[in-house]
């Protein structure tokens, strides 16, 4: 979610649709705002703006936790009901690809953290660079996901009624229904996760553009930090998704 209060507004020029300028009114307050770079008109100080943005993102992440939490609960309930079915379903997923994606995301969190650090010390080139690498890694994740999904579709392993037709060599008949539920949870959760990744990628693009234009300074870099929070959260969700979906019943010595 793009928070207001600082993003894209640099004091005097970009007020957009705000109607700050009330003719005939005493405007000492607004004038002092106009001089502070990056401060939105309704905040009284940069400190307040930064605090609001950060708290806002934490609260938003809390709502995301509740959102994904509901799905995790559904997963837990059905896994408890069909333990062997879920194992079978998990075997249909590719651990190497999932593992690769996990590494990709963890590294991207590191580069994101480096980007935040760069913004804090005011290093514009490194900031753009690290943001760029994070974006590339995020896109790589999505590409791998695309291949995983495509393979599922090719094997008729998408759980829509009428389309779903697992091969007998892959799956014994009595597991068809539990695996259908597993696959549904897999697609729903990784799909929602991928959607959040796409939104995150969009945010990164905006940040890269802004950083490139020199919009961030040592004192005004909260959008980068806030985006970093979001990115780390999306990463953490994957850290939970990966073992629960891919590693159920996984034994190192083969399935």
């Amino acid at each position, binding site marked *: 979610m793009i928070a207001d*209060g600082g993003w894209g507004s640099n004091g005097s020029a970009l007020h957009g*649709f705000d109607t700050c300028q009330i003719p005939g009114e005493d405007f000492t*307050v607004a004038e002092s705002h106009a001089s502070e770079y990056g401060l939105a008109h309704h905040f009284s100080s940069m400190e307040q703006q930064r*605090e*609001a943005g950060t708290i806002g993102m934490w609260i938003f992440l809390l709502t995301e936790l509740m*959102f994904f939490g509901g799905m995790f609960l559904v997963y837990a309930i059905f896994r408890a009901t069909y333990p062997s079915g879920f194992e079978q379903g998990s075997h249909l997923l590719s651990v190497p690809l999932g593992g690769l994606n996990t590494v990709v995301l963890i590294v991207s969190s590191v580069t994101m953290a480096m980007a935040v650090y760069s913004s804090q010390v005011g290093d514009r080139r490194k900031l753009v660079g690290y943001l760029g690498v994070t974006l590339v890694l995020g896109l790589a994740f999505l590409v791998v996901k695309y291949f995983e999904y495509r393979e599922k579709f090719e094997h008729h392993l998408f759980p829509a009624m009428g389309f779903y037709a697992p091969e007998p060599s892959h799956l014994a008949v009595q597991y068809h*229904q539990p695996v259908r539920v597993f696959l*549904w949870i897999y697609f729903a959760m990784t799909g929602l996760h991928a959607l959040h990744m796409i939104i995150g990628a969009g945010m990164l693009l905006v940040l890269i553009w802004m950083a490139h234009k020199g919009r961030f300074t040592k004192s005004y870099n909260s959008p980068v930090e806030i985006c970093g929070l979001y990115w780390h959260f999306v990463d953490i969700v994957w850290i939970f998704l990966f073992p629960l979906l891919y590693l159920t019943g996984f034994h190192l010595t083969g399935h």
Partner: protein
Amino acid sequence: MATEVIASVEESRQTYLNNGHTVKSWLLTLDHKRIGLLYLFSISAFFLIGGIYAALIRLELLTPKGDLLTADTYNRVFTMHGVIMIFFFLIPSIPAVLGNFLLPIMLGAKDVAFPKLNLLSWYIFMIGGALMLYTLISGGIDTGWTFYPPYSSIYSNSEVTIAGVSIFITGFSSILTGLNFMVTIHTMRAPGLTWFRLPLFVWAHYATSLIQILGTPVIAITILALALERSFQIGIFDPKLGGDPVLFQHLFWFYSHPAVYIMILPSMGVVSEIIANMTRKRVFGYHFVAFSSLAIAVFGFLVWGHHMFTSSQSMYAGLVFSIISYAVAIPSAIKTFNWTATIYKGSVSFDTPMIYALAFLGLFTVGGMTGLFLAALGLDVHLHDTYFVVAHFHYVMVGGAIIGYLGGLHYWWPKMTGKMYPEILGRVSAIIIFIGFNFTFFPQFILGYLGMPRRYYAYVPEFQVLHVLSSAGALVLGVGFLMPLFYLAWSIKYGKPAPNNPWTAVGLEWQTSSPPPTENFTYDPVVKTEAYEFEHVEEIRQAGKAASAQPA
């Protein structure tokens, strides 16, 4: 009776209302006050639609046979009544209209923390509302507002998926509003405005926002799951495919129970403000009332199973949910006692908002206590899914939440519009609403104990007298609800100009003009007093002077 207007309002003065007259300046506004009015317009429209459905229900139930509507139509009518009233009227009502308008002003701020997000919230609400209107036009859904599968996922022939998507989208409006409010309250309080100097209206909205951000995502994912179940027949709720229909009930009520606290807590905040200011006394036990709001928000998340005592959940689950439900009732009782104690040795005025506040006290007590009947395990077995439940929730949602909303609307109307509504009409309609409401819903308690089930359009003849009484009351109630619609609208053009502080109240919102300028204040407010300190209210002193200046 001519009254001196204490502070004059110049025609040429800029307020948020005349700061831009174009449609664009309204539809693309970032001003929280204008956004509040946008919501007022939208939810009033939805209230009318929901009210028409209510009228159809009561008309049908005048006779035991189903003769006005077909069974199928009736099922759609009561479903749409519930869905529209809950999701598109009650849940937004006070937070989106009064909260949006007042919260920044009460905090001494210029706007909410994220004004663009605030506008986005309204657009999201409108998009969700448009989808629901589409559902309505396509014949409406017939699943009950509770959407229980397998009926909703397999058997219903109505636009369940689209309705689900509509609610999914509208939920984000609620989440973003809650987020905005929480951040605003945390970070944008004026200097000197510590937490325990906040008006109780603000505390109430903080607690409400907590529920909104934690609970709404769960209904979002639940309704999404239902829509996917219906579209792809996955089998999570379908027993024939190994799913569990009761799982849906757990997920649904996990949000929908806290949702009722989203509806009542803001109303309690309004009542605190009205009673304090119209008795000129600090709310008795301020800290207790503030903490009770938080307690209700927290405990409210732990009791969802009390909607499922007969649903085949285990007896032990029932015991746990029942006992915690009694714990939730206690903070509400504490508030009621505190409000009553506030009136003691106060200086009581009988203006319209106070009449609404008093009506709230009585109706919420009945509504809340009848909740105790339903939280009682052995009794709920008999009462569940009967008209007793219908009566209970209308007492708290209409007698509690809507009465509070109307009281607040009247109380802050002068601030919002700069005009006074006609006082006599205000008091008369409040009384008509109170009488009509009781005639409509009290007989339903009796119907419920007698065994009349919910969602029936035809019933056994011995229930008819009570239904006729109820429908007669509904007619009166309808008239009572329509009256404010007309005279409030009338007052915008023809009402008497309002002074800055018509109620001689305390609170930052009364320290600025009626209506306020776009920036809310023409100075930077600094708070030096506790909440509800009436000794320093200048307007009270002025009123005394004005009165003593009158010739004897």
